[in-house]
C-alpha cells in the first residue's frame, strides 16, 4: 500500500487522527494531493530531527503548519 492509500485508510478509520507525511517525493503535486487527502503536515526526506520535533509539536498543539 502506498502512502496516499494509507493516509486515506487512516482518515476513513478515524478522521480525527492527525497524520504527518514524510516522503522522499518532493513534487509539489504530491504535496497538494497529501494536503487534499487530509494530512496535517508534509515533510520531505531527509527530515532533520529539529524540523520533525517542531512540526509534531505544532500539529499536537493544533497550530498551523507551513505548507510551502
Amino acid at each position: 500500500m502506498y502512502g496516499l492509500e494509507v493516509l486515506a485508510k487512516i482518515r476513513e478509520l478515524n478522521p480525527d487522527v492527525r497524520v504527518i507525511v514524510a516522503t522522499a517525493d518532493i513534487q509539489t503535486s504530491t504535496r497538494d494531493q497529501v494536503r487534499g487527502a487530509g494530512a496535517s503536515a508534509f515533510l520531505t526526506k531527509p527530515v532533520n530531527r529539529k524540523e520533525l520535533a517542531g512540526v509534531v509539536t505544532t500539529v499536537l498543539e493544533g497550530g498551523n503548519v507551513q505548507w510551502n
Partner: protein
Amino acid sequence: MELTYIQKDALTELINIGYGRAAGALSELTGYRITLEVPRIAMHPIDEIAPHLMRMVEGEVASVTQVFSGPVAGNALLLLDEKAAVMLSELLTDDVAPSGGFDSGAREIITEVGNILLNALLGVFGNLLQVQISFAVPRLRVDTIDSVLQSITVQDEELRYALMIHTRFRLRANNVSGYLIIILGITSLDRMLTELEKWEERQKG
C-alpha cells in the same frame, strides 16, 4: 535520434538543478560536502549502455533502481561499487559493519538513500516540467552491471535506444563515490523535450 544543441543545453540545465537537489539531500544525510561532476547526456543503443557503465564501475555493484511512470517514464539508478556502499552506510550510522560486508542493515540504508536521492532528482523534473511522476518502490540489487541493466531492459521493450544521463558524485574527505543514472525510452524522451520547451517558454515569460 540526435538532440539539438539547444535541446541538450536545456536538458543539461534541468538535470543540473535535479542533480544539485540530490547532492544537497546526500550532503544533508551525511554531513559531508558533495562534489558533482558535470552530468553527461548521450543517446545509446540499449545494448551499449552496459559496456559503457562497466568502464566506469568494475565488478559487482550495489544498485538502487527506481522505476518511474507518468508522462515521462523510465528508470533511475543509483550505482555504487560494493565497497562504497558499505562505507556510505557506515557513514550514515556511525557504525562499522561487524562483517565488513554489505549486510541487511546496510542494504536497507542504501535502499533508503537511493529512494531519497532518486526522488529528489526526479521530483525536480516533475516540479519544473509540471508533470506528475509516480514512483514504484525502490529495489536494491547487488549484481554485475550487465545483470542490473538486463533486468531493466527485459521489462521495457521500448528501450531499444535510451537517453542516458549520468554523473559521478563524490563525498569530500573520503573515498565514497557513485553514479546517478537516468534511462529514458524514446517516447518519454520526446515528451520530455516537449515539456522542456514549455518550461523554457515559461522561463522567458
